[in-house]
């Protein structure tokens, strides 16, 4: 048997209603005094039983180098692989011939949070983040530009590693 199936012990005869009722009443009363499972959300965001997974794929974050510039070299792999076509990239080149993004925008409404952009990025620049509180007052605030992506501070996702499928 692959999964554990709980087999209930069924009585062979008809059962006593009164006993069953009293047992039910005792059960609900015992639950009245047990510790509660509710997490008081805005004050308490994780508990010892429940935290956000480190593999969680949330809104993006662009990592920066020591000079505070985005690590992105505008290679164009992320807009290429993006299945939702939500990344807009216009490459530029400086005097030394280094490529950098002139425009880098992610439409978080189009994004399906597959994490391919992070997987494909050769410079480990763009990442999906372990983050879920994204509310805004207007729709256009959901197109994150380069400045906003680099300003994010939440932890980045570790994604799923095929060589370590259980994350050990």
């Amino acid at each position, binding site marked *: 048997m692959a999964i554990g199936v709980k087999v209930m*012990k*069924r*009585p062979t005869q008809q*059962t006593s209603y*009164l*006993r069953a*009722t009293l047992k039910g009443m005792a059960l609900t009363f015992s*639950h009245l005094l047990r*510790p*509660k499972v509710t997490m008081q959300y805005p004050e308490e965001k994780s508990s010892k039983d429940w935290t956000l997974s480190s593999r969680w794929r949330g809104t993006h974050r662009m990592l920066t180098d020591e000079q505070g510039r985005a690590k992105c070299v505008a290679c164009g792999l992320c807009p290429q692989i993006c299945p939702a076509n939500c990344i807009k990239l216009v490459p530029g080149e400086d005097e030394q011939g280094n490529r950098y993004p002139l425009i880098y925008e992610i439409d978080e409404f189009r994004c399906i949070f597959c994490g391919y952009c992070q997987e494909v990025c050769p410079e480990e620049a763009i990442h999906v983040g372990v983050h879920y509180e994204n509310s805004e007052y207007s729709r256009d605030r959901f197109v994150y530009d380069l400045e906003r992506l680099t300003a994010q501070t939440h932890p980045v996702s570790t994604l799923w590693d095929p060589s370590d499928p259980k994350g050990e």
Partner: protein
Amino acid sequence: MKFFIIASAIKVFVVFNVIMVGVALLTLLERRVCAWMQDRLGPNRVGPQGILQPAADGLKNFLKEETSPAMADKTLFTLAPIVSFVPALLTFGVIPFAAPLPTKWGLVPMVVADLPVGFLYILAISSLGVYGIVLAGWSSNNKYALLGGLRASAQMISYEIALGMSTVAVLLLAGNVTLAQVIAQQQQSAWFIVPLTLGFVIFFVSALAETNRLPFDLPEAEGELIAGYHTEYSSMKFSMFYIAEYSNMVTASALMATLFFGGWDIPFTTWDQTDPSVLKTVITLIVFGLKTFVFLFAYIWIRWTLPRFRYDQLMALGWKVLLPLALLYITVLATAIWFLRVQLGWEYGTGMAWALGGLNLILLIALVWWLDRGRIVSGIGEEAA
């Protein structure tokens, strides 16, 4: 006379407000106890421990849109919540809730109206409540509401009979329908729960059905009737039905405390019966409140434990079990009381209470054995491997 009018007006005002606040807190208690039984916390945001949640709910209900279905009978549609609400509050008027309060103008009985026909008044008024529900179901011009109203009328009328019959036992023993006298009888010796245990069981079950509470809330039965008779209601009109349901619960609980658990009597002491004083009034009021609370909690506890009855099961229980049982009980009890009073010349006292208590115990065991198909509270026999 002037004193009587002023005292009555003050009592009406205070009792009305206490019941309204009590009902509000009861809705909160219901939600929190429900949550606790389901390992949740329940509403705890508005005020300390959610104590202001009912106020927020009330405010919300006042501000919500008042909808009125196009094809509804406008007059009856508006009248129904009132007809449901008013009797629910009126019934509390005759229940004594504390020892008499001495003032410098005289002794004030702690009951809104000390009617000589007290108990009959309760039966008369509480059965009016069904009109509100039926009118609501009819006037909404909605099939679910109508079915809910229909069920309510059948259910409440059926259980009204068993309820009335079970209380005949109390009247036989007390020899009086004035609730103050019923309490006075119980203060002298044992509470009526001892000589009338089975009567209490019938009363309790019927009262659950009378107040349309789970497991007998067929008129609402959200799984099949959306919300039953109040499907079309919104805003304060809906709130009125809600308040009516909870004040019916309060009245039924207070009635159980009064008829079977000695009302405001403090057990194992006669200190509360003599020399009225303000302190005694306050303490007996608290005792009465506690007794009522126990039954209110039982209502909530049962609601969040037991599943809803099927409609035919409900009717079968009412007509085939509770009604014959109540009739049989009255017959047996009347014979026993006649035997003890007339043949042996006993008066109501501890001896008589325990003699009748023994009789009740035998009847109760027989009943449970019969209802439970040959078992008492015993197990379930052999279990399948």
